[in-house]
């Protein structure tokens, strides 16, 4: 029969807290280390133990990383979702189930493989049988798919950090899973196989949250204040984890303070206090936290205090789907707080960019003297993605316009804390403790010297300068990345974690409707003029987003010249799941049909 090599999707249905995460990561790492392009997505509940969890592994020589249209191999471990999982299987699916769950699998149209996983595991260690059973399914898959034994064992050893007993136990479980298949099951009819590819020796898997955390350290973060919230907690925890290695001196004294705040309001306040005192301070949160921080964000905007806030977006509104993904916070970030505000938002789409924007966000914040958002999401932040390595910042830190001496102060003609002496909208500042031209910072109206004022012309002038300051950043914030087609008929604009679906969307459009589309990945707000040029150059432009309302599209409608607006269309969709290429390809087709393109 025809083999299907490196082009299928696995779905592993387990219960939360049973140790399946380790087994799944071992599976993912093994394939990755065999040089096979693979992505893993953990669909987990808001729960510590017991509720259903699915792990989706997409294997694709094309490099597709989004969940596929269908599952090809279904692992059944969880009684609670058993029937539902079976019902979701399309004809031809290979169903591998734990017979010790003692649930029926009645599907004549699928290949059904039963393995007494718990019994096998119990033979190794009765107490840990439930956890070890997960390694048995990895062993079964290893045999069915043809995974490399040595690489698999290395992955086990890495997963358990050299703990000899755990490694031995799990390696044995793998072997038993393998031999059960070899002894009892004819796999010649199963088409799915993994074949090793040449691996890029520089590439590794990492979660977006860890990449941002490392970036923050290389940005010299001096204060992390945070309040735990899924899916951002692992970002803060990764910062804490790297402090002993990266941020302590010979006496084990630290250069990075960490305060677990009483709430997100306090976390934001501490960031602003730190920025005011002259350090690089940050927090990490998700949408509900941003809602709470909004008052302080307005203060930072108006009083011009630098700070960095990472939003790892989860599905809102309200508590929403706290363990699912979305790009639903974008417009809130851009305009957080009351009155007229506008905040720079850096939007990474890869692990390399998560690291880079992790440090760069501080440069932007200090240069602009304002709060800068990093915008990630649960998909990017909490799943493993391929990374070619982290690049050390080429330039020294950009600390912005800070005056450190009386001579520097004297050299500025007509200094005032809020006076735009350079014409770029960015004033100079002095730090507390310096004794240099001190002011009482305030969130109330103030003149160019920082003195309280309610005068109409002073307020108006201040607000215009702040707008000018933000506009001046459009050309030097991270610029959009373009892939231009010669035809320049259809242009796709997208951002963030959609990067992981875009190639597949592109291929579907080319295969199914013969359209080659240009692409523009937005990497920062406020938008670069290059985005406007991209729109100008294309006949129809479609903005892809993982939200209901088309938030970036909305921002564009407000900021673009009127004549360009009719060209721009929204393809927004959100159901809590990572973006699936098929959904967006269909939405794009619908738009093209509507405009008769």
């Amino acid at each position, binding site marked *: 029969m025809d083999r299907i090599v490196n082009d299928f999707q696995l779905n592993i249905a387990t219960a939360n807290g049973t140790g399946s995460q380790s087994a799944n990561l071992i599976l993912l790492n093994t394939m990755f280390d065999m040089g096979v392009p693979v992505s893993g997505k953990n669909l987990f509940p808001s729960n510590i133990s017991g509720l259903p969890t699915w792990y989706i592994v997409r294997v694709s020589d094309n490099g597709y990383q989004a969940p596929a249209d269908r599952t090809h191999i279904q692992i059944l471990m969880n009684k609670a979702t058993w029937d539902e999982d079976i019902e979701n299987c399309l004809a031809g699916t290979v169903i591998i189930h734990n017979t010790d769950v003692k649930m029926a699998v009645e599907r004549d149209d699928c290949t059904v493989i039963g393995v007494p996983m718990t019994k096998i595991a119990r033979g190794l260690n009765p107490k840990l049988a439930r956890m070890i059973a997960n390694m048995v399914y990895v062993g079964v898959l290893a045999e069915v798919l043809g995974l490399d034994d040595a690489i698999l064992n*290395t992955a086990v050893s*890495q997963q358990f950090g050299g703990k000899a007993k755990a490694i031995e136990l799990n390696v044995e479980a793998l072997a038993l899973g393998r031999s059960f298949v070899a002894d009892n099951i004819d796999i010649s009819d199963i088409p799915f196989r993994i074949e090793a590819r040449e691996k890029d*020796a*520089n*590439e*590794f898997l990492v979660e977006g949250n860890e990449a941002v955390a*490392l970036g923050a*350290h*290389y940005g*010299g973060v*001096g*204060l992390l*204040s945070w309040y735990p919230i899924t899916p951002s907690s692992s970002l803060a925890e990764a910062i804490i984890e790297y402090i002993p*290695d990266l941020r302590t*001196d010979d*006496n*084990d*004294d*630290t*250069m990075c*303070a960490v*305060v677990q*705040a*009483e*709430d997100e*309001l*306090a*976390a934001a*306040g*501490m*960031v*602003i*206090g*730190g*920025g*005011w*005192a*002259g*350090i690089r*301070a940050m927090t990490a949160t998700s949408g509900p936290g941003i809602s709470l921080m909004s008052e*302080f964000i307005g*203060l930072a905007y108006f*009083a011009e205090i630098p700070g960095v806030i990472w939003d790892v977006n989860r599905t809102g509104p309200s508590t929403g789907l706290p363990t699912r993904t979305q790009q639903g916070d974008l417009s809130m970030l851009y305009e957080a707080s009351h009155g007229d505000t506008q905040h720079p938002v850096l939007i990474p789409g890869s692990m390399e960019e998560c690291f880079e924007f992790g*440090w760069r966000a501080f440069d932007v914040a200090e240069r602009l003297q304002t709060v800068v958002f990093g915008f990630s999401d649960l998909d990017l932040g909490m799943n493993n993605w391929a990374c070619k*390595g*982290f690049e*050390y910042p080429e330039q020294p*830190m950009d*600390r912005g316009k800070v005056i450190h001496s009386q001579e520097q102060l004297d050299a500025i003609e007509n200094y005032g804390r809020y006076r735009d002496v350079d014409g770029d909208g960015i004033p100079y500042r*002095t*730090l*507390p*403790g*310096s*004794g240099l031209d*001190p*002011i*009482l*910072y*305030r969130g109330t109206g103030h003149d160019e010297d920082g003195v309280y004022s309610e005068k109409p012309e002073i307020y108006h002038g201040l607000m215009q300068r702040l707008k000018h300051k933000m506009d001046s950043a459009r050309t030097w914030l991270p610029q959009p990345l373009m892939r231009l087609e010669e035809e320049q008929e259809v242009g796709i604009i997208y951002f963030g974690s959609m990067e992981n679906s875009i190639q597949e969307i592109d291929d579907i459009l080319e295969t199914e409707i013969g359209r080659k589309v240009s692409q523009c990945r937005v990497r920062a707000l406020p938008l670069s003029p290059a985005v406007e040029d991209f729109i100008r150059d294309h006949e129809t432009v479609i903005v892809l987003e993982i939200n209901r309302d088309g938030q970036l599209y909305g921002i564009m409608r407000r900021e673009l010249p009127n004549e360009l607006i009719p060209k721009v269309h929204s393809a927004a969709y959100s159901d809590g799941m990572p973006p699936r290429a098929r959904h967006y390809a269909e939405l794009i087709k619908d738009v093209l049909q509507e405009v008769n393109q």
Partner: protein
Amino acid sequence: MSIKLNVIDLPKSDYQGGASTLCPGCGHDQISNVIINSAWENGLRPENIAKMSGIGCSSKTPAYFLSQSHGFNTVHGRMPAVTTGAAMGNKDLTFLAVSGDGDSASIGIGQFIHAVRRNLDMVYVLENNGVYGLTKGQYSATAVKGSKKKKGPINETQPIDLCKLAINLGCTFVARSFSGSKKQLSALMKAAMSHKGFALLDIISPCVTFNNNDESLRSYTYVKDNDVELHAYDYIPTQSPIEAAAAPEGEYHDITLFDGSTLRLETIGSDHDPTDPVAALSALHIAEQEDKHVTGLLYFDPTKATATEDQHLVDTPLAEIPDDIMRPSAASLDEINARFRGKA
């Protein structure tokens, strides 16, 4: 005649601020004067002080003292968080914070509690008047049960006593005073400024305008009758600040407030042991039962580590560390990359 200098050779004028815009006679201005005097007498360097405040009448006052110090008039009730962040950035600054009862007992009570819990090294001056002055006279959470404002019903809700709360939270310096008791207040202010850790100075500072009363009501009625255009609350009676003679230790002193009512202040006795939190709480409870306010240093514990000490920060304030030290080396990133690649 030579100008009088303090221990670091600075004149008192170096500690002064802008003109007050509070109501004439406001007790808060007396507190500002005590702050100026105390900082001068303690020989604090103005540039090393950071003035912090929230929102409200009290929080406006940092504009009226220490104009050579940086300050931050933040948002309502959230000054402790900003101070926490600033302290992490520069632990060598002296944080002198002014807050009100709206800030500290209502909207920001959580931040107040957590700053105490962390023993953040700061002077926390609570200018406590029982009303929201800037929004024109609503009761605050420290308003005494049964008190009656100009308009609206009697306050039926029991008050929050932040001194009691602070003692229970393990606050390392808890004192209560009165804005008119200049001598006692000055002594406590100077002690608070010298304290390492969170120093709460709860100062009863009656509102001249909204702690209203028959007498000013009459004045108000009088003005209203004579000028129908006048907005109901636009009339601010000009008052002289309340002055109180210091009560000897263990004795009390009655003060007539702007509304004609009496405030009985009792100075805590010399036999009070300020290291005994139970005795301090007991004194506060007994005073409450007897409709008195006990003043003086109620509780003191100089032994606890501060919020910044708990961090084990390097000696140099973080804000003064060179960028190339704050940014880890390129070699360290090479190592991290190698570790991820399984080659280290």
